[in-house]
């Protein structure tokens, strides 16, 4: 038996999660139904003209994705914890951070799949063009940051009985910088702001992503061990 490479182990975790999810659609369907419900409710609640609709787009989208993402994060870790499968992952002869990266990549894929479905629906309902490379780039950066910190905190909260309540309480305050920066950057792009005006939120996004991925890499071992 040879020692598994970290990349091979991360790929195995991602493949396992994707295979299970695309067989059951438990996680994505919950996130998707919630997201579509939220944007439809906002569509009726905010009966505004086109200009105003465009100005609220960033806020509506990131509110939707934040709550849907939290649903997905809770579910993703609950699946591992409830059947003891987290122990199965922890028993593997790999660095524990491999488990974190594998789960984070899986969670990111699920979130991006939901975003890819929600965006066209939103565009159609609100008559706002969201298919721009720069906007999609901000979407990815924001999602990476949210999932990076969310995967770490959902691993912590999954070990408690009150995980559904605890995760949002832990996650939302910590995710404020990435959410605000994502809203600012997205809103600026949609409003046609100068690049210099959205440079600050973009920098915040990049720094946040790097910092929290590094923090998760360093502390994940201590989070999962009894």
């Amino acid at each position, binding site marked *: *038996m*040879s*020692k*598994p*490479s970290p990349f*091979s*182990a991360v*790929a*195995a*975790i991602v*493949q*396992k999660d994707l*295979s*299970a*999810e695309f*067989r*059951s659609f438990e996680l994505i369907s919950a996130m998707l139904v919630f997201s579509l419900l939220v944007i439809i409710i906002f569509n009726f609640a905010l009966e505004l003209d086109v200009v105003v609709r465009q100005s609220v787009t960033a806020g509506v989208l990131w509110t939707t994705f934040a709550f849907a993402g939290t649903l997905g994060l809770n579910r993703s870790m609950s699946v591992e914890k409830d*059947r*003891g*499968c987290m*122990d*199965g*992952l*922890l*028993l*593997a*002869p*790999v*660095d524990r951070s491999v488990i974190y990266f594998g789960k984070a990549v899986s969670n990111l894929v699920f979130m991006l799949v939901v975003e890819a479905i929600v965006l066209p629906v939103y565009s159609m309902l609100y008559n706002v063009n969201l298919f721009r490379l720069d906007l999609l780039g901000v979407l990815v950066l924001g999602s990476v940051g949210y999932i990076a910190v969310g995967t770490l905190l959902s691993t912590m909260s999954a070990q408690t009985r009150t995980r559904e309540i605890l995760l949002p309480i832990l996650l939302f305050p910590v995710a404020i910088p990435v959410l605000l920066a994502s809203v600012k950057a997205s809103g600026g792009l949609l409003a046609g702001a100068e690049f210099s005006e959205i440079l600050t939120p973009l920098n915040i996004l990049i720094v946040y992503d790097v910092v929290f991925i590094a923090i998760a890499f360093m502390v994940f071992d201590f989070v999962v*061990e*009894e």
Partner: protein
Amino acid sequence: MISVKKLVKRFGLKTILRGLDFSVAAGEFVALLGPNGAGKTTFLRIIATLARPSLGLVKIAGHRLPDEAAQVRAKLGVVSHLPLLYPDLTAEENLKFYARMYGVANYELRITEVLEMVGLEKRRKDLVRTFSRGMQQRLAISRAVIHDPEVMLFDEPYTGLDQDASEMLDDVLRSVAAEGRTVVMTSHDLARAEDLATRFDVLSRGVIVASATRDDIKQTNLLAFYKQALEN
């Protein structure tokens, strides 16, 4: 193969293991007995590197915990009362996942071998959620041996199994032990432990209170030895 000296484990203010000493030679099959709350599962979780000792020295297959935990995990196979299997994956997909996590080369062949060992080769393409409890436990054993570990840990493996499933598990455990692996098993089923193990240790209130080999208890029986150990 396993050497534990003055092991202490605390959870907050509560001390579960209180200076436990324990050792297992290569190839031994040790049944770890004890009442509920004695610390058996906690002890097994520490050996399995799922929990960190508060104090004490733990060495497994020459590697020291917690510093060399990854090396220890490569030589361990663990079966608990939970199967550690993904219900929405097939038996084959579960084993493929674990084979990749353990770096097993040519895992397709190895998957077939371990499925045949536990009698589940014909169910390899079926989802685990369609398996009975007994079948899941057998698949869990194949998961645990897929990387050919030197040391096997079983934590209450008979939990929830009916008579037929328990007898099948007996056969599998005997074949695992016959391959020369070192085995530590916790169980409340004294009859099964007496049939399978070569040594019996009793854990009570966080320490080993008695230890006997199969020859030692020939004059009486395991139940008498166990009760005597707890009374003392």
